[in-house]
């Protein structure tokens, strides 16, 4: 399985993502730059976290309009897996590849801590190595992770099992509607989540709860 990491100015978790993919798959991912109009043949494209373009206008708004995102959208239509983490999630919603919007945390504070996530759908290409309902730990670090969608979109997301991760046990750090931490598109091949599973993949991180997400996507046995 081959993977790629999208690089944009202002992202700062790109090296974490590259390290995680390299350690888990044994092969370094290909990197693609914001101006690239084509992405090589890969099975998984990841968009890391950070503050692309200083998060000017709205988080992820400028990044979502860069040429590379048209290439990501084309690949997603063809069924290639896409994971957007944190700013990557914001970019995916701004690009229209996932529904809804990510707004300022209700506390108005930047949150940097560990939360608990419940796997609310373990029947996806990103979560099949987890148990249904399993609670995992994951770091979060964001100012705008407050997921919002209109009532109809929310009904569809909940009804179709598109809510994949939910903040568990009162750990919702941002006021996200229905405690939503991560969602997939209706096709099931695009995932966006605010937490950082790539920062919890080995003992040196204090745990490996996030590892199974990448093992699921990359088809690697635990």
């Amino acid at each position, binding site marked *: 399985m081959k993977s790629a990491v999208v690089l944009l100015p202002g992202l700062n978790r790109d090296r974490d993502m590259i390290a995680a993919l390299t350690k888990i798959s044994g092969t370094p991912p290909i990197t693609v730059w914001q101006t690239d109009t084509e992405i090589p043949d890969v099975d998984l494209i990841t968009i890391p976290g950070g503050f692309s373009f200083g998060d000017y206008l*709205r988080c992820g*708004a400028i990044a979502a309009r860069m040429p590379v995102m048209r290439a990501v959208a084309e690949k997603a239509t063809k069924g290639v897996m896409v994971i957007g983490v944190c700013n990557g999630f914001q970019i995916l919603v701004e690009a229209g590849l996932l529904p809804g919007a990510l*707004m*300022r945390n*209700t506390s108005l504070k930047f949150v940097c801590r560990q939360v608990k996530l419940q796997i609310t759908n373990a029947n996806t290409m990103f979560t099949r190595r987890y148990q249904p309902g399993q609670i995992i730990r994951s770091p979060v670090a964001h100012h705008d992770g*407050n997921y919002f969608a209109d009532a109809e979109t929310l009904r569809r997301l909940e009804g179709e099992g598109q809510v994949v991760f939910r903040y568990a046990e009162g750990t919702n750090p941002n006021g996200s509607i229905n405690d939503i931490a991560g969602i997939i598109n209706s096709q099931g091949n695009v995932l966006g989540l605010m937490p950082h599973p790539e920062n919890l993949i080995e003992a040196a991180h204090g745990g490996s709860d996030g590892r199974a997400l990448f093992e699921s996507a990359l088809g690697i046995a635990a």
Partner: protein
Amino acid sequence: MIKARITVTLKNGVLDPQGKAIEHALSGLGFGGVGQVRQGKVFDVELAESDKAKAEADLKAMCDKLLANTVIENYSVAIT
């Protein structure tokens, strides 16, 4: 040259934590009777265009494509 002012506001029903904080701060300053406060954005745009109708269409397209996130925001365009 056409100058325009674009105003972007949050749709009704969309939670506005920043507006809420401003609302509380105003009350804290002693301003009585402050109701709901909603925060928005204003863009002043200059366009090298003389056709008003064309400019308005372009400005609306700019809003739809970038300046507003129509999932959560409304916009209005005023040519000044």
